[in-house]
């Protein structure tokens, strides 16, 4: 209970003064302030005309991202309506079976991958700096790169529908239907297009985690962060652990489709269930990746309209973290009917029920907040209330489907269709609409219409329930999912017709809402600043907002600074916070320590550049061209992407500043350059590699999964890579790793030639290591088409080899940087980041060789 008492104490013992404010500082004159403002404007100005596409600033990219994902939502919504039209009456032939399968596959795929996850990234890219009081995200170009990847991949996947080439195997893509029995490009488009989009999700996750941990306003200790930032941290971490297994699965899947390596082919030692495991290890956390950000939005909205700080801040945080953890232990509840052993069923059933508890805690915290305060009625609160009614019902049916015997009846029936729409529309769409009504003034300076908002709400709420409530019964009466049609006389006719009518009422509500978003608003006056009288930092922003965000960056000492630090707005506007100027002509933001938000660095943030867009185009070529079997062109596109990214890194990251320190104001001077764990780049590498490890461990999981279903494993008649060659390869790679370590050590001593020699030697050792790793399968003539065993061994070796190649490029990059004087004894960020990469590479090498060479030798 201590934490919770702390909660209230926090609110009651508010600091009235600007914490750490130095009243001694002489009042600056108006002319000086205007000059500062002009500097900030000059530095943060967005390019215009066609060059606008080179913009990387979070508020612009965030808006693009938001718009694109809303358009994908509307597209997928129309597909949903087509499904409902087809099912309105029995034996309908509005859509042919082939078309229907494409349409329902795309409905699910687009909603999940192009709307529900990206829109949260869009919201976060757009608003995170405002939430945390920074000027920009740490890697604006990375956000832009992620956006372009998302847009290109999304258009590619959606476009396929118009060429009758769309995926048609369901959004879950179960093999062997999709590996062996669906010719055509559909499955390839799904696999490669979505892998490409997953790259952008992971890019966003890296960006957002570093943004939350390292770019908060000074004083915003981790227990003072707005709840949105907490949820963001949890969700971004979940993306990091959930998406990589799918990427690993996609890799295996594409290897099977393109090269016939039999990972999922039971007749050659594979197992279709491996895909189901990898897919749902991703797929279940995915549900919470979609749901939690929307809860986060609710957590921002409810206190504002209750006029009371959240009740049980720590409980909400713990619940969010708990949900994140539990969500990784539930995936088998999508596989109850596959014949997994009863003991596993019991475990996953219990874990699935357990997740209801943190969810309930969050909901009751919101209700308690409302009870503690005095509610102001508004459209955002109306949508929050609707979300509560819908989501709670979806959650309760979720408790039901987590019970194994019940699930064996309703699994893959319309009951589950009803359940998942209650959870996703109540848990995600309604809060999202609430948030768009709530944040619209912040995003576009104009308020949305209260009247249209209410109309939209009632249409959506009624339409939704009319459409989806009957489906519970439709499912219990035995209607399976994903059927193109059904016969009369089964008792489905009326129910389906009602559902279709409801779907159109829901669509009408969405149309009203969309009209409210796009209706011309030139003649409408700007919204007032902080129109809802909210207490959180993002509402400090001017309306309309400035490209640089806040006039100056404040010290934060409370959870609801606008309520609890009354002087804050004036002090910030008068430029009495940090970074009130842009004297040196750079875009800058503060980097602070992860827990206590102590300022550590004045980060020069990269500005406008076409590089992210060009790199995304070439990366797109790498993923998209293989769909059409244009492997050579794809290879060149990949090389071009690599060259672009190297150019981007060379000219844009870890630049040695001309001035070592920066007076950021309020008597604080910070270094312009830091390296190692203080630097955002190091954190980005760390976080990326954690995701990378997850993908790698998913492949290792694949190896041991086969081990569990085969006896003996490796099979006696299958050649392995032997013991000698893999061990030799491992030894060489570990020596290359040692070379990088020594290079860093020599660099600290400023012994340039030794650094270069070490890096060159490490490059050479990596090449030799790669050769040794390749030798094993070649010498023993492993044939990956013949059986799943050689296929998974070679997949692991390919993974290791690709990483070693990237490691070699990094070594070469550092060598060139050192020779060019861009790495010096004191400016060693690149080298330290590369060493961090090599730590992970060394781990990958050890585990790979232990698995494919040592483990079989020991177990034989």
């Amino acid at each position: 209970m201590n934490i919770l008492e702390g909660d209230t104490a926090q609110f009651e013992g508010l600091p009235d003064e600007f914490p750490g404010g130095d009243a001694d500082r002489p009042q600056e004159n108006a002319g000086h302030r205007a000059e500062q403002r002009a500097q900030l404007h000059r530095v943060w100005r967005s390019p215009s005309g066609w060059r606008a596409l080179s913009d990387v600033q979070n508020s612009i990219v965030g808006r693009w991202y938001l718009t694109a994902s809303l358009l994908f939502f509307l597209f997928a919504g129309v597909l949903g309506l087509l499904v409902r039209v087809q099912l309105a009456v029995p034996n309908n032939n509005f859509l042919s079976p082939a078309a229907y399968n494409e349409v329902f596959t795309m409905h699910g795929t687009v909603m999940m991958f192009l709307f529900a996850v990206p829109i949260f990234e869009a919201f976060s890219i757009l608003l995170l700096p405002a939430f945390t009081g920074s000027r920009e995200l740490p890697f604006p170009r990375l956000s832009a790169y992620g956006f372009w990847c998302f847009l290109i991949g999304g258009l590619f996947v959606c476009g396929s529908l118009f060429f009758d080439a769309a995926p048609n195997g369901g959004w879950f893509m179960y093999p062997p239907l999709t590996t062996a029995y669906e010719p055509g490009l559909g499955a390839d488009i799904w696999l490669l297009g979505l892998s490409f989009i997953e790259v952008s999700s992971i890019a966003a996750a890296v960006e957002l985690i570093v943004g939350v941990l390292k770019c908060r306003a000074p004083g915003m200790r981790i227990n003072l962060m707005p709840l949105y930032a907490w949820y963001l941290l949890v969700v971004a971490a979940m993306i990091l652990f959930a998406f990589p297994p799918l990427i690993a699965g996609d890799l295996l899947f594409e290897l099977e489709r393109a090269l016939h390596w039999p990972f999922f082919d039971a007749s050659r030692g594979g197992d279709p269930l491996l895909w189901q495991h990898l897919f749902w290890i991703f797929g279940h956390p995915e549900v919470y990746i979609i749901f939690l950000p929307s809860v986060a939005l609710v957590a921002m909205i409810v206190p504002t309209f209750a006029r009371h700080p959240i009740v049980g801040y720590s409980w909400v945080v713990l619940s969010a973290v708990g949900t994140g953890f539990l969500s990784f232990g539930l995936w088998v509840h999508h596989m109850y009917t596959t014949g997994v052993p009863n003991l596993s069923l019991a475990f996953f059933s219990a874990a699935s029920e357990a997740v209801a508890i943190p969810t309930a805690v969050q909901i009751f915290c919101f209700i308690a907040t409302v009870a503690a305060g005095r509610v102001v009625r508004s459209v955002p609160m109306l949508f929050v209330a609707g979300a509560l009614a819908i989501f709670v019902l979806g959650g309760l049916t979720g408790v039901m489907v987590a019970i194994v015997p019940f699930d064996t009846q309703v699994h893959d029936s319309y009951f589950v269709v009803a359940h998942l729409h209650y959870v996703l529309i109540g848990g995600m769409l309604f809060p999202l609409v609430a948030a768009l009504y709530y944040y619209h003034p912040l995003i576009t300076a104009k308020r949305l219409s209260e009247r249209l908002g209410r109309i939209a709400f009632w249409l959506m709420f009624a339409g939704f329930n009319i459409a989806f409530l009957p489906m519970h019964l439709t499912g219990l009466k035995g209607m399976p999912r994903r059927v193109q049609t059904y016969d009369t006389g089964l008792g489905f006719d009326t129910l389906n017709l009602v559902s279709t009518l409801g779907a159109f009422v829901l669509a009408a509500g969405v149309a009203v809402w969309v009209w409210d978003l796009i209706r011309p608003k030139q003649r409408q006056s700007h919204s007032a600043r902080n129109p809802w009288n909210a207490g959180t930092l993002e509402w400090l922003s001017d309306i309309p907002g400035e490209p640089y965000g806040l006039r100056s960056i404040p010290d934060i000492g409370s959870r609801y600074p606008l309520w609890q630090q009354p002087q804050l707005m004036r002090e910030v506007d008068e430029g009495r916070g940090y970074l009130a100027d842009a004297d040196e002509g750079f875009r800058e933001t503060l980097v602070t320590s992860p827990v206590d938000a102590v300022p550590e660095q004045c980060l020069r943030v990269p500005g406008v550049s076409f590089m992210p867009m060009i790199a995304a185009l070439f990366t797109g070529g790498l993923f998209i061209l293989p769909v059409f079997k244009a492997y050579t062109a794809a290879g060149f596109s990949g090389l071009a992407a690599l060259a672009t990214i190297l150019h981007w890194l060379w000219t844009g990251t870890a630049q040695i500043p001309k001035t070592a320190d920066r007076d950021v104001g309020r008597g604080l001077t910070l270094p312009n350059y830091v390296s190692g764990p203080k630097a955002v780049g190091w954190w980005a590498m760390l976080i990326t590699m954690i995701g990378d490890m997850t993908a790698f461990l998913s492949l290792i999981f694949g190896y041991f999964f086969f081990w569990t279903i085969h006896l003996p494993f490796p099979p006696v008649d299958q050649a392995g890579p032997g013991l000698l060659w893999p061990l030799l390869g491992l030894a060489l790679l570990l020596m290359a790793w040692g070379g990088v370590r020594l290079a860093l050590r020599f660099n600290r001593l400023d012994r340039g030639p030794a650094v270069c020699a070490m890096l060159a030697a490490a490059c050479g050792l990596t090449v030799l290591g790669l050769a040794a790793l390749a030798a094993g399968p070649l010498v023993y003539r492993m044939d990956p088409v013949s059986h799943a065993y050689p296929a998974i061994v070679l997949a692991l070796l390919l993974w290791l080899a690709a990483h070693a190649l990237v490691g070699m490029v990094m070594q070469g990059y550092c060598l060139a940087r050192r020779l060019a004087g861009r790495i010096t004894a004191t400016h060693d960020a690149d080298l330290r980041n590369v060493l961090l990469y090599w730590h992970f590479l060394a781990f990958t090498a050890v585990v790979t060789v232990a698995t494919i060479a040592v483990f079989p030798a020991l177990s034989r």
Partner: protein
Amino acid sequence: MARAGLLLGSLPASLLVTGCEGPQSALMPAGENAQRIATLTFWMAGTALIIWLLVMVLAVLATTNWKRSWRLPRLITGIGIAGGLLPAVLLGALLGYSLPLLRNDGPAPALRIEVTGERWWWRVRYVAPGGMPVELANEIRLPAGVTAEFLLSSPEIIHSFWIPSLAGKVDMIPGRVNRLHITPTHTGSFRGVCAEFCGSAHAQMAFAVEVMTPDAFQQWLAAQAAPVVPEGHGAGERAFAANGCGGCHAIRGSEHRGSIGPDLTHVGSRLTIAAGTRSNDVPELHRWLAATEAVKPGVRMPSYSMLPETELAVLAAWLGTLE
């Protein structure tokens, strides 16, 4: 919120008018397994509805003046009780009740039926101890009150075997054999479907289920086990042979031994054709032969629309006699 509650309250009532009945309704159980689950369903759904109403009432009260007595420490205790304690107790009870239902089935029963999910039909094989297996397609008959063991597999793609009135579903996965025990409680006609998406004809992959008295079942099985006695070597059989039907289909007791498509030995006696999607009579057989794709998209059996109508009619009529 009150209006919302009213709306949500009135819908289920109107829907109940539609009823729970239907040949594949999990709410009208005719098997022990389905009966247990239906009971569980009614209990869980009822409790869920009560909890939902309580949460809604609480949320509405939180916005009114009635809550003035709720002070912060009490609210926090309330969160702990409503969000932590109560769910933990309820879920614990639910798990305690439902997990024992997972117990392994008893000893393997004498009646064993292998069902294989084909594209897109069901190969059904009754394995009698000692005797020759009896193969048929898209139809399962069971004796009431007797436990049958199903051995479920698939040679190609994943399907899911689901007879909602009798038991929950079990997937049919290449490379595996899943088992399912079914004990029908009373006689009647039911319907089974494929529940796992399996491509172009997923919606047309059903089968007829007939629960009979044990005596009637034994008679039926004996009749199915007997080779067919075709009525002479008429024009129908000549057409069957001339068009190569025997390459895919078997008729026990004749030279036709194909095994790609359904065994047609007693096709005339079956309740449906085309995997539970059409009634079994001569006109439907005729239509099926002439345009298989129109009935079952993506079907592997070609249409025989190039044959003269008369020949199709003869063939359909002859198939109808194979009882």
